[in-house]
C-alpha cells in the first residue's frame, strides 16, 4: 500500500503572473550564484597555476607585519610584507608576494606567524614562474576555493529548482494526459529531493557549528592551560564592517607581550571571532582596555604567537546554540528521509488491505495485510466492532496547549520584531529617526500586540467551565445510533447560552502559489442542544442517528471527512467556550443490517 500526493497536473497550478515572478526571482539567484562561482573558480584556478612553478632557493631580504588601512576604523587588516631575492636561469630577480594574491588577516597572529616562518636574512624556497621568471611566490594557494564555490552553487541550484517548479506544470499537463494516474506520483523523486535538501542543510549547518561553536569552545578549553602573561595595550578600537544589511562591529585590541625575552604582538580578544551588530557592547570592552594600559593576556606555551585577552566564556558564545539547532533540524530531516518509503510505488501482488479501525479507532487508512485475507477485506459484521463500551471524547486542542502555543508564537514573533524596533528606537534616540523603518515596522508591531492579546485571551479561557463528552457505544458505524452525554464542570453559571452540535465536514488542503490553504465545507449539521438553562447545561444527553447513506470518516494527507461534536458556550465579557471533539464514524457494520443497499446493478 502506498499513499502519495500527485504533484503534476495539479488544478491549482501557478498562474502566468506567478510564473513570471518566480522566474525573475530564480534568474536573480542563478545570475548572482553563477557570478560568484565563476569569480571563485577563476581566482582558484589562477592560484593552482603556482603548483607547476619551479622551486628555487631565495633569500628573505625583508619581513614584517603591516596594518592595511581602509577608511577610518573600517575593514582594516594585517598584511605579511615580504621581499626576497632569487636567481632563475642566471637572472637575478626580487619578489614581494607571499601568495599569488596577498591577503590581509583580521587576526594579527596569522600574519605574525608568516613573519616568524620567513624571518629576514634567512634562506627559503620560493616558486618561480618558468614562463615569466620575474613572477614568484613563497607558497601555493589553498584548495579551499573548491569548497567555497559550493556555497554560491547552492544559490544556482535553488534558482534552477524554482525555475523548474514555475514552468514544469505546462509540460507535465500535456504529459499527464498520456501518463497513467498512478505513474504521476513519484515517491522516489520526492525522497531524493528530501535527501539532497537535508544533506546540504546538514553540511552547511555543521560547518557553521564548527566555526561558531566547536572552534571557540575548543579554544576556551585549550587556553585554560595557557600561561598568564603581562601585556601592554598598543591600540584599542571598535571596528566597523559595512554590509548590505547594515554595519556590524568587532573589537580590535592590539597588545604586545614578551616570551623568553622576545616581544610578540597579537590582537585576539576572545575565541568567538567575527563581527556582529550592537556597538555598545564592543565599546564597553574597548573602554576596559585603553591604549597604553597594562593588562593580562594568556599565551600558548607551544606557540608564543598564539595569545588571547579573554579566555573564559563570553555572552556572544550563546550564538553558537543557533547552528546547533540547525544541525538538529538537519539530523531530524535526514532521519525522516531514511524513514521514507523506498520500496516500489505499489505493493506486492495480492497484498490487499485490511482496516485499521480496531487498532487505532479510525477507519480511514487501509494498510497492507497478508496474502490470503479476502475475508478480512469484506464488510465487517457485528463481530468486527467493539460496540459495548462507552467512551469519553478527547477535545481536539487542550486549553493549556493553546496557551503554550500562543506564548511560543508571541515570543518568537515579538522577539524578532523587537530587534528591529530596538534599531529604530536607537535612530530616534540619536536624533536621526529612520522614518521608513519606523513606518515599515508598524504592522509587524500590531501583529505582535495581537499575539500578546491572544495569550491573555487563551489564559483567561483556562478558567472556563470544562465540557466532558461521553458517547455510547464508543464506536459509531454508519447506519447506527449513539448516545451523547455532556457534563460541564467548573464555573458554568457564567454561561449565557450553551450549544452542542454534531457536524460532518469536508477538509481540502491545497497549494496556492507558495503557501498552503485548507478549505472546509460542512455537509451535515444536527443541533443537539441549545439552551439558556443552567440545569440543562450542567448535564444532559441525546441520541443521534447517523444515516447509512453518508460517508464515514476519511483521512488522507490533503483530503478529509471529519465528524465532530462542537461545544459552544457564550460568556459575557469573557472568552467563550469553543471546543471540538472528533468522532470516528466507521463504515457500515453490515449492509443488510444497515438497511441500505440492494444488490448493485450491473452497468449496461
Amino acid at each position, binding site marked *: 500500500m502506498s499513499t502519495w500526493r500527485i504533484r503534476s497536473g495539479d488544478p491549482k497550478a501557478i498562474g502566468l503572473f506567478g510564473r513570471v515572478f518566480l522566474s525573475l526571482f530564480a534568474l536573480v539567484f542563478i545570475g548572482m550564484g553563477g557570478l560568484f562561482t565563476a569569480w571563485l573558480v577563476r581566482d582558484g584556478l589562477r592560484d593552482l597555476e603556482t603548483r607547476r612553478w619551479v622551486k628555487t632557493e631565495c633569500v628573505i631580504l625583508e619581513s614584517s607585519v603591516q596594518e592595511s588601512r581602509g577608511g577610518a576604523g573600517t575593514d582594516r587588516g594585517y598584511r605579511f610584507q615580504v621581499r626576497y631575492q632569487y636567481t632563475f636561469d642566471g637572472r637575478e630577480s626580487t619578489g614581494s608576494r607571499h601568495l599569488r594574491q596577498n591577503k590581509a588577516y583580521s587576526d594579527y597572529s596569522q600574519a605574525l606567524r608568516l613573519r616568524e616562518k620567513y624571518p629576514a636574512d634567512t634562506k627559503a624556497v620560493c616558486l618561480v614562474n618558468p614562463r615569466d621568471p620575474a613572477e614568484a611566490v613563497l607558497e601555493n594557494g589553498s584548495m579551499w576555493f573548491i569548497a567555497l564555490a559550493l556555497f554560491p552553487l547552492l544559490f544556482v541550484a535553488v534558482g534552477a529548482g524554482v525555475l523548474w517548479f514555475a514552468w514544469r506544470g505546462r509540460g507535465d499537463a500535456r504529459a499527464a494526459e*498520456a501518463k497513467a494516474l*498512478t505513474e504521476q506520483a513519484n515517491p522516489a523523486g520526492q525522497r531524493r529531493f528530501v535527501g539532497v535538501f537535508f544533506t546540504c542543510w546538514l553540511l552547511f549547518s555543521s560547518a557553521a557549528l564548527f566555526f561558531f561553536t566547536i572552534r571557540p569552545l575548543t579554544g576556551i578549553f585549550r587556553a585554560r592551560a595557557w600561561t598568564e602573561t603581562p601585556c601592554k595595550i598598543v591600540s584599542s578600537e571598535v571596528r566597523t564592517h559595512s554590509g548590505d544589511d547594515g554595519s556590524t562591529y568587532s573589537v580590535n585590541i592590539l597588545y604586545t607581550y614578551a616570551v623568553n625575552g622576545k616581544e610578540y604582538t597579537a590582537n585576539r580578544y576572545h575565541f568567538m571571532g567575527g563581527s556582529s551588530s550592537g556597538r555598545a557592547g564592543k565599546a564597553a570592552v574597548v573602554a576596559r582596555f585603553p591604549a597604553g594600559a597594562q593588562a593580562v593576556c594568556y599565551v600558548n606555551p607551544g606557540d608564543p604567537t598564539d595569545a588571547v585577552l579573554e579566555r573564559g566564556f563570553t555572552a556572544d558564545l550563546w550564538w553558537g546554540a543557533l547552528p546547533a539547532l540547525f544541525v538538529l533540524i538537519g539530523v531530524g530531516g535526514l532521519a525522516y528521509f531514511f524513514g521514507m518509503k523506498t520500496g516500489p510505488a505499489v505493493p506486492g501482488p495480492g*497484498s*490487499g488491505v485490511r482496516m485499521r479501525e480496531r487498532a487505532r479507532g479510525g477507519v480511514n487508512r*487501509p494498510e497492507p495485510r497478508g496474502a490470503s485475507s479476502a475475508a478480512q*477485506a469484506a464488510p465487517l459484521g457485528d463481530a468486527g466492532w467493539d460496540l459495548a463500551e462507552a467512551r469519553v471524547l478527547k477535545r481536539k486542542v487542550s486549553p493549556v496547549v493553546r496557551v503554550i502555543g500562543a506564548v511560543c508564537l508571541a515570543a518568537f514573533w515579538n522577539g524578532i520584531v523587537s530587534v528591529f524596533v530596538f534599531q529604530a528606537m536607537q535612530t530616534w534616540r540619536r536624533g536621526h529617526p529612520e522614518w521608513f523603518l519606523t513606518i515599515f515596522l508598524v504592522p509587524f508591531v500590531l501583529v505582535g500586540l495581537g499575539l500578546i492579546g491572544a495569550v491573555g485571551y487563551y489564559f483567561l479561557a483556562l478558567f472556563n467551565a470544562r465540557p466532558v463528552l461521553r458517547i455510547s457505544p464508543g464506536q459509531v458505524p454508519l447506519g447506527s445510533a449513539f448516545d451523547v452525554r455532556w457534563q460541564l464542570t467548573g464555573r458554568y453559571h457564567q454561561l449565557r447560552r450553551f450549544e452542542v452540535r454534531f457536524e460532518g465536514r469536508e477538509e481540502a488542503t491545497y497549494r496556492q502559489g507558495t503557501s498552503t490553504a485548507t478549505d472546509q465545507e460542512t455537509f451535515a449539521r444536527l*443541533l443537539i442542544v441549545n439552551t439558556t438553562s443552567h440545569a440543562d447545561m450542567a448535564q444532559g444527553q441525546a441520541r443521534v442517528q447517523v444515516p447509512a*447513506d453518508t*460517508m464515514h470518516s476519511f483521512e488522507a494527507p490533503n483530503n478529509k471527512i471529519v465528524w465532530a461534536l462542537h461545544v459552544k458556550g457564550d460568556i459575557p465579557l469573557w472568552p467563550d467556550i469553543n471546543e471540538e471533539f472528533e468522532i470516528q464514524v466507521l463504515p457500515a457494520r453490515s449492509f443488510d443490517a444497515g438497511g441500505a443497499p440492494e444488490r448493485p446493478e450491473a452497468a449496461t
Partner: protein
Amino acid sequence: MSTVKLMLRDDRTRFRPGEQIEGGVAWQLDRRAKSIEVRLFYYTKGKGTTDLVVVDHAKFEDPPPERAEKFEFCLPAAPYSFSGKLISLVWAVEAVVLPGKQSARLEFVVSPSGREIDLDQTQLHGDRAASDARAG
C-alpha cells in the same frame, strides 16, 4: 503504436465494499516491455491536492507482444466513493505498460448501495433526552 485495453467482468461499474472485482487486460505491443501492471487504486478529486492510494496490483512479467490476461482483486471495506462540494473520491483500475507511457483506466463506484455517496444528501436525526431542550 502499442495499445492496452481494460475491461471489467459484465462491464460492471458498481461494487460493494469487500466484493471481488474481476476483469481482463489485453495488449498489443510494438516494443518489448518489462512488465504490465494492473493497479487497483482510489484517488481524490476536487479542491484539495490529489491523494492517491494504490491498494493492490497484479503484475505480468515479460509480456509477449500480444495477449489478454485475467485479473481479480478483493475490494477493501473502505473508503466509499463519494462526492461533496470540495472533494470526490474515485475508485479505478489502471493498466500500465512498463517502462513507457501506455496505459488504460476504468473508473467505478464502491459503496454499500452501489451508488456514489452524495454528501449534500446527508440527513441527521436526533432526540434530546433532557426535559426542555430542543433537538435539531
